């Protein structure tokens, strides 16, 4: 059985509960055990770093120790968590001086960063550790050519110099892992220019106009190219897309939710009641019916 230490982040435990629900639901179907780490701290969210980079590094070194104790890799379900943890891991494993300083502080709490747990995003765990055929086999409700737009966000695979080892060498300028997933679920992936563009989440509080313009561009282009649904791996992107979506938007789902729908999982188990951009009837109309005997 595939077992991983799950780093839950902050948003999924707060404003994006559907992400955790859908991730667990899908993991169960695929035989993945996720052990939620409940003593971890926020990764710093790309904001603490701008205030005190050392403090952020210290907290993240501590975060790794929990996965190290379980002798498992540290799995993330948020783009920014992945980016921050990957940067931290890189610094701690290449800069011996800084690592010593950090471990000196951690000693006081009987902790040591060892570097034996790598930071990996759930999307790439699925891609690298779980066979693609295994995913296809679980599909009870193939999406029958439904046009789906993947939205990657930016932190998932950047900076690529550091993250390429965790992302199966995904190119930030021409990614393909979500397209592959969509195809495996029976859908038709839609290509559009801003699929790897930033959604503007991190400055949305004080630059809402920029987020508004970026989100409109993303959703607008996806729709122009025929997409009926948009999927994303990141709770920050998801929150920002839903917050700034134009009045007439397409449903914005997590890819785990899309997987769950294709697997025939029940609506509530995927947290779909939480998505603000989803109207149940409209979304179900896009999907084929699951026969009784195939339902989970």
């Amino acid at each position: 059985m595939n077992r991983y230490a799950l780093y839950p982040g902050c948003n999924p435990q707060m404003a994006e509960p559907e992400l955790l629900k859908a991730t667990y639901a899908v993991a169960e179907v695929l035989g993945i055990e996720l052990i939620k780490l409940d003593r971890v701290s926020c990764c710093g969210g790309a904001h603490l770093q701008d205030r005190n980079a050392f403090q952020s590094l210290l907290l993240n070194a501590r975060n790794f120790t929990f996965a190290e104790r379980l002798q498992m890799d540290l799995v993330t379900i948020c783009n920014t968590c992945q980016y921050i943890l990957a940067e931290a891991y890189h610094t701690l494993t290449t800069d011996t001086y800084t690592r010593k300083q950090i471990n000196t502080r951690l000693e006081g709490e009987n902790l040591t960063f060892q570097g034996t747990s790598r930071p990996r995003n759930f999307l790439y765990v699925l891609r690298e550790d779980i066979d693609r055929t295994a995913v296809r086999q679980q599909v009870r409700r193939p999406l029958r050519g439904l046009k789906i737009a993947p939205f990657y966000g930016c932190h998932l695979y950047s900076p690529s110099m550091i993250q390429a080892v965790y992302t199966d060498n995904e190119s930030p300028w021409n990614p393909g892992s979500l397209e592959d997933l969509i195809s495996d679920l029976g859908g038709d992936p839609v290509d559009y220019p801003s699929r790897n563009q930033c959604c503007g989440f991190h400055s949305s509080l004080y630059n809402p106009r920029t987020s508004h313009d970026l989100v409109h561009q993303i959703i607008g282009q996806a729709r122009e190219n025929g997409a009926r649904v948009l999927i994303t791996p990141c709770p920050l992107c998801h929150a920002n897309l839903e917050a700034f979506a134009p009045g007439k938007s397409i449903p914005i789902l997590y890819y785990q939710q899309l997987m769950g729908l294709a697997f025939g999982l029940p609506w509530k188990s995927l947290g779909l009641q939480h998505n603000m951009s989803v109207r149940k009837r409209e979304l179900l109309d896009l999907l084929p019916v699951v026969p009784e005997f195939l339902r989970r």
Partner: protein
Amino acid sequence: MAPDSVRLNIFRYDAFRGESHSYDCYDLTYHQNDQLLDVLEMIKTEIDHSLSYRRSCRHGICGSCAMKVNGKPVLACSTPVRDLVREFGPKLTVDPLDQSRVVRDLICDMDMFWEKYTRSAPFLEPVTVQASSPGPAAAVSAEPLDDGKTPLIPLIFSGSTNAIDDADHCIMCGACYAACPVVPLQPDFLGPAAITRSYRFIKDVRDAHPGRLAAVGEAGSGVWECIKCLKCTEVCPKQIDPFSKLSRLHQEVLRSGSSPGGIRARHTSGFQLNLLLNGLLNEFPLAVFAMRFRMITMLRRGIRMFLHGKLVINPLRPRSRGYRQIRRLMRRSR
């Protein structure tokens, strides 16, 4: 080494003719070590002499030949075609850095880019060297050379040069500026190159120009406008990592107290306070803390979130089970 095939769609435009742009399509073979510029040169000298682009040094130091391939800004002279094909497949679209500023084919107007560079006061204002005074001048001490006729050259130690961290290596090619999504949306934003240039002087112990930090900390144009998408770091052909420089400036701006205050500064300090309290972040109380009365603009969204079960009002949730340990470590790393 057998040559390989590629299809190039190249952007063509002439401001003088004023019509809309077009793409010229070429099916070509290229060799193992051909750079994009080599292929453009071949097209220009052998097929269409009118194709125009900037280029000079051919080895990635002058910065002339920045352009976009499938949306990605690159230096044409230092980007092997084989790498582009590996990343994007055998169909490549070559565009100028900024279509909205194109003048001729792949040549854009770079005036705005240079203006922002000039605005960042990109020159050293020398500190007056006094061997016995404290402060930045202490890192530098004068050592007179032999006969006293030869000039004084201050000593500078590697810690000081390392602080600049290669920011002076920027060749001002414009790739980062073209990759930045904020630039077209917020025309006042200085952009990664100009901010990196400011960083280079802020970190130079020999510089005494006042107000550099305040300038990059200004709302509307400085480091606060960055959305942290990392595209600049992705494209920099000299691997300078402009975002990390910007992030360090962010820290300095906050430390020096010369940030614009208001919602921006409160958001960052509120974030830290929230983590001290719970170890995990709750966006709702943070937004209240940072935005204060402007929260009223988010009322509709707040209601929708509440109805969808997305609002956690309790400021003590979510809370990590390790919150006490987290608090201790945070206190000890102020």
